[in-house]
Structures are given as C-alpha cells and as structure tokens.
C-alpha cells in the first residue's frame, strides 16, 4: 500500500496533476466514465444514420447527409461502404469504447476501492496509465473515421479474408485494438490485486458487495480472454502489413485477379476461433458489471438483503468460468460437425442456468420488500424483464438446428441488443443515478430522471422488439438495403418502426444530458449517505477526498443488512457494529 502512502493528503496539486494525469482512482473513474459516455453517444449517432438508410433506402440523409465524406456517402445518400463502416464502427465503439470502459473503467474504478474500504487502487500509476492507453486507443479508433477510408468496414468481427483484403481502415482498427486490449489488461491486473489484497479489516469474501464480485470475475475474464485477441490482431496485422497468409488460403481470386503473391496455407476460420475465444467472455464482461450495479440498487431500494446472495456469487463465478468454453456457438454455420457442435450447444445450455439463477434471485428479492421507486430503481427494475428477453432469445440461437434459420438474421441483433442496450446500458444509467451523489455530493433531479426513464423504456422496446419478427421472417443483418430481399421488402414496416423508435430514443436522452450537467452544479445537496445504504462507499464523505476514508473503516457485517429486526434504522452500514 505504500505505493499511495506518499500521496495521502496532497490536495494542493496543480490542476493537470489533480484532474488530468491524476492517480486518484475516483478522478480516473470519472475520466473513464465521461470519455465512455461521449463515445457511447458517438456510436449511437452512427447507428441513427444507418437506421435512416434502412428505413428509406437510397434516399438522401436529411441534415447531415451532405456532411458525410466521399467514402461514406454520395450526394447525401449513404453508400454500401459507408453502411458497412458505420456498422463496424458502431459495434466496435459501443463494445470496446463505450460499455466496457464505462462499466469497468468508470464504475469499477470509482466504486470498487470505496466499497472495499481501500484508500485507492493497488497500483495508482498503473491505473492512470491504463486510462491514457485506453484514451489513445479510442482516439485512434474514432480518428480512423476521419481518414480517407473513413474507418474499418468489415464488421466489428473483422473476418478475414474480407478484412485482410480491405482498405487500410482495418489496419488502424487493429492498431487501436492493441491499445484498448493493453489498457484492459493493465486495468484487470489492478482490479484483481486491489480486490484481493486491499480489502478493509473484517471484509471477508462473503461480505463483499455483489458488485465487487461481479467486477472481480470481469477482471479475470479480461485478463485471460483478451490476450488471444491481441495475438489474433498481431497475426492479422502481419497478414495486412507484411503479406503473410495466416488467414489466407491458397488460390484466392479477387475480382478475376489471382492473388498469386500469397504463400497461402492459412485458414480463415482460425481467426474466428481466436476472435470468439475473446468475444464470448467479452459478452459477460459487458453484462456482469451491469448485474452488479443492479444488485446494489435493488438491495438498497427493496430495503432488504438480496435473496440468495451466496448462490448469486457462485453463479457469477461459474458464469465466468463457463464463458470460456462456449465460443464456437458463434460458428455453427462454418460447417461444424455433429460432435463439436453438440459439445458447444451443450455448454451453451449449461451456461444459461447460472444466468437464470441470478435473475431468479434478483426477482425473489422483491418479494416481501419495501420497494422505493427511485430513478435508479426504475432502471434496475426495467433491466430485469429486458435482460430476461435477451437471455431467453439466446436459446434458439444456441441450438444448432434452429440456428440454421436464425443465424446472422435480425433475430441475433435483437437478442444481443436486448442484453446490452436495455440490459447493460439501463444498468449503467441506474449506476449513474445511484452513485452520482457520492461523486458530486449532489442528487440528480428525480423529475427529469423519470422523464428520461419512461420514454427510454418505451422506445428502446420499439427499436428492438420488431427485430425478432424480422429475424423470424429471414431478414439478414448487415444489409445495406434490406428491401433487396423478399423477406426484407415484405417486413419493411417493421424496419420503419425500429428506425423511428431509435430516433425517438435519441430524443429521450435529452433530459438525461440536461439533468446530468444541471445537477453537477445546481443539483440538490445531499448527505454522505442519501440512499440510506449499507455498503462502505457511503461511509466516506461525498465527494470522497484523496485517500477516501478519514479513518480506515472496519467491517462488522454483510453487505445488505437492511431492515434488521430490532434495529431502529432500516439499515445497518457494514462499518457499524450491530447493537446487540
């Protein structure tokens, strides 16, 4: 801990040391969160442009159409390359620049050390490094969209040979990826060490808030799943830059030109294995921190302990472990034999069980509760059915036979967006509304919060619900013009619904943005523990000073001691000994 021992109480730092190159986990957390929110909004805007092309194929995009460069659009009409680029960048930005940095870098950094009663992360300078590496990676990614090729356009999955034969946008993508991966690795090392070694006295593993558990498992996933992608990225860079053939078989003919300069002997499917070995755990990296936040918010607003805390913990560990052996269910259509596919659909079915357990525990926690319908709670409650839909619709995709028809259709899009959009992103909102008072000492406006929640809840379903029906009808994803297909033409009405849903969803975010900035300066001042919560972060002053706790806290009880019989208050903070 001496790493930060020296930095205690140095409040008179110059601005750039205090807020820019800070080593304080809270500042870094906020840096992560704000950067990620900007990226999220950017990625969201890309999608709104795509939705126009889908709703009104081949017609000029109003307002911004003229601003798009030659690679993206011609005469204000999005072109095929443009659509692919926006698609690929939307996926990449949302996953790697938006949700992960917000959920792990943002909430993880800010909340985790507080919740375990630590003065800071184990390696503060490493922490700062990981933010800035992430920042550079993000700038490279976004920057690639302002180069001549306007970024990478081979899907966020970058399948070769397409990605290898594409323009240089893909190279920039890979380089950016290497930065993001490195950042995640540094971060995950820091999180694991912090969680295991810096816990306050008395805070045994089974007294950890569920959020901490979720972050710990997430950190392990990042630590072990990302390196293979880094290797894969290196190999694809070799193919693109040096001209090797890791993913290029012999005898390729590109537009009547025989690529005879390649040695051949590579295998395109190899990339998919390396990629999905990361990308499936990545799915859980996206959802677990969200679940953690939801658990915190639900426990706090039901005013009772989480139901089945231990099974929650075991489930999340099991989930993390299993997520490493399901990756090939993304590849059922590559010509996989019966044996292999059986294994992977089996593991896929197994991994659905812990998810069901987690959801059930959270639902049953509502039983016999005293529910406070605060804004964070509204988002948390919405998360439950939305995530349920996302999870359930994973079933027909995880079964090879039904996947034959549904693979690569809008059913898939609907499925994973229900998990990450009204799932994770709602969880993120819940977290922002919940911890905002801790970060600023002020509360976000309830009224604006509700104005943000209800439209968002309605429109996000308007966006994604039609996708299941389109997928059923056989409408394929990544189609620049769906109406070129019979199914797409027939279900064009549903496309319109999705698109309008998306644009209205964008409007529904205005109250949030207003609320966010208004509350920073004008929000209602609140006490250190406005939600009457039990976990340690609320024992620190708001906003917590450098070093967090005036006195190192000692933990006497579990994380969710709410409504303990025979106690005057309806909550007993972890750092307060129960009056026996």
């Amino acid at each position, binding site marked *: 801990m001496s790493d930060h021992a020296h930095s205690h109480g140095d409040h008179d730092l110059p601005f750039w040391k205090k807020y820019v190159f800070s080593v304080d986990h809270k500042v870094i957390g906020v840096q992560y969160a704000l950067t990620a929110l900007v990226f999220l909004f950017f990625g969201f805007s890309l999608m709104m442009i795509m939705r126009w092309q889908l709703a009104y194929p081949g017609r000029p995009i109003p307002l911004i159409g003229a601003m798009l460069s030659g690679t993206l659009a011609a005469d204000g009409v999005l072109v095929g390359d443009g659509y*692919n680029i926006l698609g690929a960048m939307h996926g990449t930005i949302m996953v790697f620049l938006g949700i992960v940095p917000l959920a792990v870098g943002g909430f993880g950094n800010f909340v985790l050390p507080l919740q375990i009663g630590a003065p800071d992360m184990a390696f503060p300078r490493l922490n700062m490094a990981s933010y800035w590496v992430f920042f550079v990676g993000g700038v490279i990614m976004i920057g690639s969209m302002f180069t001549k090729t306007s970024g990478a356009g081979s899907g966020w999955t970058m399948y070769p040979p397409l990605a290898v034969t594409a323009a240089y946008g893909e190279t920039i993508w890979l380089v950016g990826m290497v930065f993001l991966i490195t950042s995640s690795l540094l971060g995950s090392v820091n999180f694991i060490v912090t969680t295991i070694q810096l816990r306050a006295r008395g805070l045994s593993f089974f007294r950890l808030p569920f959020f901490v558990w979720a972050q710990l498992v997430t950190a392990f996933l990042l630590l072990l799943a990302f390196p293979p992608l880094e290797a894969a990225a290196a190999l694809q860079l070799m193919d693109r830059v040096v001209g090797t053939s890791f993913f290029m*078989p012999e005898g390729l003919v590109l537009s009547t030109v025989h690529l005879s300069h390649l040695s051949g002997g590579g295998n395109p499917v190899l990339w998919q294995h390396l990629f999905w070995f990361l990308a499936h755990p990545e799915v859980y990296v996206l959802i677990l921190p969200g679940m953690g936040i939801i658990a915190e918010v639900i426990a706090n607003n039901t005013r009772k302990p989480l139901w089945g805390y231990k099974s929650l913990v075991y489930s999340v560990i099991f989930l993390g472990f299993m997520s490493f052996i399901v990756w090939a269910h993304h590849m059922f259509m590559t010509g996989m034999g019966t044996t292999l596919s059986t294994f992977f659909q089996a593991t896929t079915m197994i991994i659905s069980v812990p998810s069901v357990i987690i959801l059930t525990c959270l639902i049953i926690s509502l039983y016999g*509760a*005293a529910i406070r*319908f605060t804004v964070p709670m509204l988002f948390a*409650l919405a998360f439950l059915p939305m995530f349920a839909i996302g999870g359930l619709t994973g079933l027909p995709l995880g079964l090879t*036979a039904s996947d034959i*028809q549904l693979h690569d259709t809008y059913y898939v899009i609907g499925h994973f967006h229900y998990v990450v959009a009204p799932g994770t992103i709602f969880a993120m909102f819940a977290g922002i509304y919940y911890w905002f008072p801790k970060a600023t000492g002020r509360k976000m406006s309830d009224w604006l919060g509700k104005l943000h929640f209800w439209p968002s809840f309605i429109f996000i379903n308007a966006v994604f619900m039609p996708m299941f029906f389109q997928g059923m009808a*056989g409408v394929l994803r990544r189609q620049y013009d769906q109406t070129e297909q019979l199914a797409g033409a027939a279900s064009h009405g549903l496309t319109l619904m999705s698109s309008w849903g998306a644009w209205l969803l964008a409007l529904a975010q205005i109250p949030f943005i207003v609320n966010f900035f208004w509350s920073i300066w004008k929000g209602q001042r609140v006490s250190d523990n406005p939600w009457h919560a039990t976990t340690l972060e609320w024992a620190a002053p708001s906003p917590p000073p450098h070093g967090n706790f005036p006195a190192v806290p000692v933990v006497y009880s579990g994380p969710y001691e709410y*409504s303990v019989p025979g106690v005057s208050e309806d909550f007993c903070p972890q750092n307060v000994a129960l009056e026996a």
Partner: protein
Amino acid sequence: MPPDLHYGRWSPPDFSLHGHNIDQLIDVVHVFMLALFIPWGLFFLYCLLKYRQKPGQSAQYNPVKAKISKYAEIGVAVVEVFLLVGLSMPVWAQYKNDPPAEDERYTVRVIAQQFQWNAHYAGADGVFGKTDASLITELNPIGLMEEQDPHAADDIVTINDIHLPVGRPIYMRLTSLDVIHSFFIPTMRVKQDVIPGMEVPIWFEIDAWALSDDIRGNMTAATPIEKASWYKLRHHIFAEDVVTGDGEVMAAAGDHLGESYKAGTERIAELREAGVKELVMQPRHPLQVVCAQLCGNSHFKMAAQLITHDEAGFAAWQAAQKQAVEFEDF
C-alpha cells in the same frame, strides 16, 4: 400444397423436406420461452404492486423459503436438456450426417464470389470439368478449363440463377473464390458459410410439388392501393392486366412498378389516380438465395434466383443451354 404463401410472416414458407423439423423446434423453443416469461413476469408485477414502500411498514429481513425457485431452475434445466437432446441434436444430425447416395442425388457446385453466386453443372456426362484459378475471366467466372479438359465441354455455368430439379436429393458443393460468404435459402431452411480454400458439401431435398412457377402463382396477393409501397412491392410483377373502367390497360401482366423508389412511387400514384383499388401482384422470383455473411460493399446485392424444375423441365433447360447464341448481324 399450402393455399397461400407469404413472406414477412412469422417465418417464410418452407419447400424443403427437412425444414418443418427446424420450424417445429423454433416454435417449441418460443412456447417454452413464453412459459417461462409470463408466470415470471406476473410474479414480478405482483411484487411491484404489493410491496411498494409504505410508511410504518418495513421489509421482511429473513429470506423467504422459496423452493419454487429451485424447482423453476431444475425445470429450466430439464426442458433445455429435452430441447437439446430431444429436438436440436436429431434435427442437426439429420441435416449434417450421412449424405444421400451418389446414384440418387443431383450434384451441383456453387462457387461464391464478390458479389455473385456461380452455379456449375456437370452437364450430360455427369462429370465436372476441372477449374483453374488462373483462367478466371469475366466470361469464365469459375476458370473452367474449357480447352484443356474434355469433361468441361458440356458443363454449364450460370450466374445468379440456380436451376435445381425437385423430388430428389440435391447435393451441393460450396466453395468461395475470395472472401467468406454464407449460402442461405430462407425458403429451404438451408444455411452454410462458404469459406475460401475449402469445399463444404450440403444436401437437402425440395418438395416434389415446389416448382417456382406454381409457387409464384400461389404467392399472388392483393395490396390495397393506399397501403402499397414500392419498397414492399419492388420485386413483384402484376399477376394480371390492370384495366381501368374505360378499358384502358394501365399495366400488363408481368409488368413491375419500376426500378427506383421515385419511378415506383410515381407509378403507384398514377394507378391510384386512374381509380385502381388494389394491386394484385406476385414476386417475380419467389425463391431467393441470399448471402448471410458480410462480404463487402455490395453484399446486400448478392442474391440469386432459385429456379426449380421437374425432371422433364430440368432436362429441357439443360439442353437449351448448349445451343449456340446467334447475334444480330453487325
């Protein structure tokens, strides 16, 4: 034969022998999903309504003894095992294992490229001519060794038209020239990634009655003119002549609405003005083959027509392909 066939409903019509199994599985899974979601949602709503915080009433600290959750989880596990072992694996095995015997199947090669489907038929001698990547040109898209290989002489190569006989197993050998594509016939419940450097065989059988011409007739549908949109009808042709009250022919059978949004929309408008009440149309090509894997900037354009013949019709088509083309005199 099913009376009326439709795209855009729950799932597209199915003309293959194995397809109904897949549809059945999909339906069962969705029933199961609802069976989970509905009761669970009701309980959720019940809690929200019953347990909102009221003054002077605190939450109960001790966990409820909810066996129900354990049963629910076990139930889920059991049903999933059933779905997996009972439905998915057999269907997949039927789809993947033991290909049809050489003598009864019809074999065709499909070579994907950006952005078209080339179909290679062995022709009369039933032997595929050899191909060579270095011979590939615009006119010889698969590099067929027309001079070098005697077997190649009678081979047929079609672009974006895939002709198949009904009533016997189709054995299709898929490969790609450039990037990864995915061969998908929505109406046959057939999907397979097409990967360069390897040749993956698939097989399926088309229902004996499923001739594309009959299907087209069966897909005839009337759209009220005020509901008509070019985007929905761009692949459709008029089933019969559209005649106004004063006997003027507005559109002949076989016509389409136009090739662009602008043209099509204007056409609809002028039909409406002429007092046409509804558009009786049918898809020009009812069976479509599409690419399900992103393959470049015109990926969405990579669609082929599947044209099904009975044995006689298929033979006739093959014979027709080999007649020398006569050009207009220069």
